[in-house]
Structures are given as structure tokens and as C-alpha cells.
């Protein structure tokens, strides 16, 4: 009997601690290298909530994982703009009301009524930036502000070009280069796009996303598609790299913290979102990732270098960037086919 009581006590203890841990845990599904560990530690210190983080390297990989059954095991994720729209359409997002976040008012006005989440029902801004490319000016000294650098490279750069290994951004930049709209269903345009890519690929060294910075710094590539903050980090390691603002256009994006459906700990997720809307914390992410926060009042906390960095301040004559659009199934499958043909 005593043994039994002991057992019961042990079992109760296990259950109790199990519950305690569950109640104090926040599970984040996040991009790689995108949040400083100190900030997560600070969140834990302030709230007592332990943070567990898994990472992904593309919006699509995250979607695939959540669809394959991981939905319900994470509280928040950080999808890009178009992916917020897709996930909302798939019913994978929970919604909140502005009154649930005390820092909701900190969201910059221009990021409040966005096309991908009008009025911010599921998401808050995390960071925003642009996707273009950087060029090693020691290797090529001509004008870099044209998408021709990637898709029709000058002889100095031939065989030294890296593109992102994600169909989305690479095909959108290719469409911008050709002057075609996104999600085009025009046969002539799509065939021309596919042919142009086949020709350009001969001059490419590699397809690499998570190594986009590394290939430029190491010299494996002398021109490479890159996100602006990653480009700033690359320049910090190799001063001759310069981020381009092509005259044909480039991509802008915004990553957003979303509340996932069936979140194991919705309350902690909301606390975390509130925490990230504090100007000081949003600035900490910006200082680390070198993008821009969509939050008011971050300026006093920002690294002064960011105010001057070329990657964060498009020159006056640069065009404005475009967001990636969400295509319907039939159209998307055409772009998938172009990508597969390109990589066959």
C-alpha cells in the first residue's frame, strides 16, 4: 500500500510538473538567424515563459511542415506577407482583437491596413525589407542597378552569379526583369520567361538561399540575390559588396508574427506579440537582423549605422519595390513547371 501511495505521489508530481511546464512554454516556429537569443532570454526573464524555437528556411517549407501535422504544436510563426494571406485562406490562423494587445497602437500606420491582412486580425509586423542582389565591386565596377546583372550578366560576372533557391522570389525578380506582371497566364510571356531563364542559368554558379551571404563573402559568387539585411551583414564581412536597387524594380516583403490556429498556449503567444511590439524589443531585432521594424518609436534604440546603411535607405532615384502576389492554383502550377524545367 505504501508503495502504491508513493507511486501515486510520484505520478501526481509528474503530472503537475508536466502541466506547469506546459503552462509556461511558448513554441515559436521561426526563420533561421532571425532573432537574437538575448531577446528570447529577456522575454523569459520578464514573463517566466520558457521559449522553444524551431527554424525553417523558406515560407513554403514552413507551410509544408504545418500542413503535415505540425499545426497545433506551435503558438506563433513568422510568415512573409503573401504567406500570411495563403495561411489565412487555408484557415491555419487564429485571430485576435486589438484590445488583446496593449501595444497594438505601436504598429506603424502604413502597416496597419495591408493587403495581406487588412486591419491586422491575425498578424503583427515583425520586420520588413527588400530582396534584390549584391555585387562585388572589386570584380565588376560598372552600373549594378539593373536586373541584367543576374539575368544577363556582364562578362566579369559570368559563372559567378548566385540566385535564391526559392521559386517564388527568383521567378518574381525574373518577371520584373522581363517587365511581365506576376501571375501572368499569357502563354507568350511565360514561354519567353522560361527561355530567358534557361539562357541566364548558363552564367549562374549556384542556387543557394541560406548560404546567400556566405557565397558572396567567400568569393564563390561575385553577384548574388540576397535580402537587404543579409546583404548588410555580408558587406560587414566584405566591404566591396554593394547592394543594388535595380531600375526595373525589386521585391519588398514583410515578415509577420502570426497567431497559429490550435496554439497550445495562446495567452503566451499574445504576450510574445505584445513584447515584440515594444519599441525597444523591435529595435533589438532590427539591430540584429538589419532590416526595418514596422513599429513606432524604435528610432532612439536603433544602431546609428542603420540610418546610413545603403541596404536600408534606397537612393532617391530608385523605384519602389513590389510585393510578391499570390497566384491561383492553375497559374501557380505554370510557374512550378517553369522552375522544374529550369532545374532539370
Amino acid at each position: 500500500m505504501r508503495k502504491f501511495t508513493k507511486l501515486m505521489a510520484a505520478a501526481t508530481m509528474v503530472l503537475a510538473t508536466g502541466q506547469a511546464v506546459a503552462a509556461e512554454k511558448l513554441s515559436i516556429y521561426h526563420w533561421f538567424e532571425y532573432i537574437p537569443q538575448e531577446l528570447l532570454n529577456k522575454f523569459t526573464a520578464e514573463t517566466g515563459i520558457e521559449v522553444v524555437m524551431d527554424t525553417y528556411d523558406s515560407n513554403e517549407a514552413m507551410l509544408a511542415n504545418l500542413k503535415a501535422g505540425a499545426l497545433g504544436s506551435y503558438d506563433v510563426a513568422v510568415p512573409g506577407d503573401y504567406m500570411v494571406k495563403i495561411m489565412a485562406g487555408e484557415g491555419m490562423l487564429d485571430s485576435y482583437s486589438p484590445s488583446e494587445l496593449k501595444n497594438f497602437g505601436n504598429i506603424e500606420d502604413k502597416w496597419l491596413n495591408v493587403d495581406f491582412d487588412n486591419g491586422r486580425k491575425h498578424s503583427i509586423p515583425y520586420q520588413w525589407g527588400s530582396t534584390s542582389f549584391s555585387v562585388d565591386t572589386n570584380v565588376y565596377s560598372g552600373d549594378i542597378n539593373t536586373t541584367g546583372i543576374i539575368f544577363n550578366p556582364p562578362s566579369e560576372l559570368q559563372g559567378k552569379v548566385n540566385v535564391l533557391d526559392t521559386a517564388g522570389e527568383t521567378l518574381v525578380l525574373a518577371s520584373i526583369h522581363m517587365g511581365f506582371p506576376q501571375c501572368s497566364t499569357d502563354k507568350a510571356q511565360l514561354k519567353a520567361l522560361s527561355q530567358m531563364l534557361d539562357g541566364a542559368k548558363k552564367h549562374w554558379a549556384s542556387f543557394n538561399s541560406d548560404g546567400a551571404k556566405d557565397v558572396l563573402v567567400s568569393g564563390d559568387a561575385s553577384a548574388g540575390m540576397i535580402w537587404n539585411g543579409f546583404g548588410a551583414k555580408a558587406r560587414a564581412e566584405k566591404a566591396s559588396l554593394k547592394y543594388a536597387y535595380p531600375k526595373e524594380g525589386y521585391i519588398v516583403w514583410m515578415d509577420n508574427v502570426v497567431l497559429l490556429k490550435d496554439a497550445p498556449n495562446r495567452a503566451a503567444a499574445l504576450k510574445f506579440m505584445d513584447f515584440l511590439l515594444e519599441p525597444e524589443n523591435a529595435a533589438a531585432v532590427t539591430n540584429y537582423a538589419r532590416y526595418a521594424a514596422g513599429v513606432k518609436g524604435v528610432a532612439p534604440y536603433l544602431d546609428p549605422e542603420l540610418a546610413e546603411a545603403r541596404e536600408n535607405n534606397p537612393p532617391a532615384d530608385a523605384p519602389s519595390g513590389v510585393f510578391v502576389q499570390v497566384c491561383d492554383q492553375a497559374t501557380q502550377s505554370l510557374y512550378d513547371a517553369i522552375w522544374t524545367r529550369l532545374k532539370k
Partner: protein
Amino acid sequence: MAGLLSSSPANKAEASIVEGRVGLLLLPSWVVIGILLVVPVLIMFVYSFLTQDFRGGVIWTFTLEAYDQFFLDRGLFGDEPPQIEWTYLLIFWRSFIQALFAMIFCLLIGFPTAYFMATSPPQSRSMLLFLVTIPYWVNLLIRTVSMKFLIRDTGPINEWLLAMGMIDEPIRMINTAFAVQLGLFYSYLPFMVLPIYASIERYNFVLSEAAADLYTGRWSTLFRVVIPSVKPGIIAGCILVFIPSLGAFLAPDLLGGAKNFMIGSLVEEQFKGQAGDWPFGAAVSMILLTIIMGILLVYARNQTQSTSRGH
């Protein structure tokens, strides 16, 4: 696979005696194989006949569309008369050739290495075995990335050659087919060395002496006496190198620059990429599985025929 390789009559007799008694003891292995191998393959098989749900997932309606997409080319817009689809066959062909070369290189280097190890004094053998396995204590990803550091334009090999004045500009090795082959070869070499070593160690060298006494030349002894005796080890090594090389995508992605799909990365793209075409990914896997099963069956049949002829 072990069954394929140990088909000597003595083994068979022993196996049949033991079988009845330990049948129950094998149950855990069968359960593990069932849950971890058979069930996933069945899921894949079923998924390959289902309809694609946009951006990942499946709709439970039967269709042959995934297989149709693999074999038939209906043009970018699906409105042209069907022709043979070369895109995926090309990807399969490239992967097979690459795996075949990796296997040949591993065999050319692995066989002499294993022979040397097995014929060295017993006390140094364990040391040599140990040396072969040391690099494999490190994760494959890390070894592949290190290889990349070695062979890049600004890496130590090129720097050294430049410093010695042997070349004027760096030799382009990274992001080439050569780099991929090197990566595969290096990744899977011990899978070739170890089974061959095990076979040669069991080989009775008195046979070689007898051959020499009968005036057989060295090469002749190697090809007509040694190699036939250690053939099971060689074949095991070849299978162990060929099959993982076929599905490898670390080396092609990191060393080859991911410019071309391999079977592995093609499947990955269907599940992780924008396409999100799970049935097609499953169909590609099933086709690969069928081809490999076919190769192994043909081999197993030849093996039984040659054994029965021999006795």
C-alpha cells in the same frame, strides 16, 4: 539484404534449424520493420494515386495524374498532344550515372584499401579500421561543408597551387560535377571498404598460394581466385554505396550549387517547395523504389542461379 549475400549451403542449414526456435524472438524486429518501413511505404503508395491539394496535402480522389505527369509531356499549358516527358527521366538518368560513378570510384579505391587492411598484421588491423571510421564520427553535413571550404576558388588547394606557381588562376572545382562526384565518393567510401574488408579477412590465403604453385600469374590470381571468393563483400559494398548515392542531395546541393535537380531534391521540392505536390513526390519515390527493387531482384535471381549451378 543479408539473406541475399549469405547464401552458402552451410548458412542455410543453420538458419533452418534455428528458425523455428527463434521465430518469436524475431517478433520485435518484424514490428519495427512493419511500423517504420512497411507502413510509410504504403502511405507513399496510396498518396501517389491521390489528387493534389493546392500547396501541400492530398484530396482523397483516385487519379493517375502524378504518374501521367512523370511520363507524359503535354507542354507547359497541358494542351499539346502527349509526348514522352524527358524532364524527369533526365533527372533519374543523371542521378543514376552519378551514383554509378561514385560506386566505381569507391570500388577502385576501396578494394585495394580493404585488401591492404585485411592483409596487414592483426595487431595493426584494428588501428586501421579505427582510422577508416574516424572521419565518420563527424556529421555528414559538416564534412560536406568542409569539403566545400577545401575546393573553393579561395580555398587552400587553389591557394597552394597559385603560391607554387603551378597555375595562374584558380581551378574551378566548386559548383561542378567533379565536386559532386568527389563529395559522393568521400561520403560513402567506408561503406565500400568495410564489407570488402570483412570478406577478405575471411578469405583463405592458402588458395592464393595454391594458385601461385600452379603457375597462375598475380593478376590472374586476383581476378580468378580472390575476387570470386570475396564477391559477396564487393556486391554488398556496391549496393551500400550505389543506393544512398542515388538519393543523395547534400553533395549535389552544397558542392554542385543545386543547379540541377537530383532525384532526392526533386522529391524534396514537391514536399518543401512552392509546388507542394505531394502525390507527385510520392509517385517519384515509388518509381525509384520500383527500379531499385527490380535491380535487386535481378541480382538475387542471378545469385541463386549461379549458386545452384555451382553445386
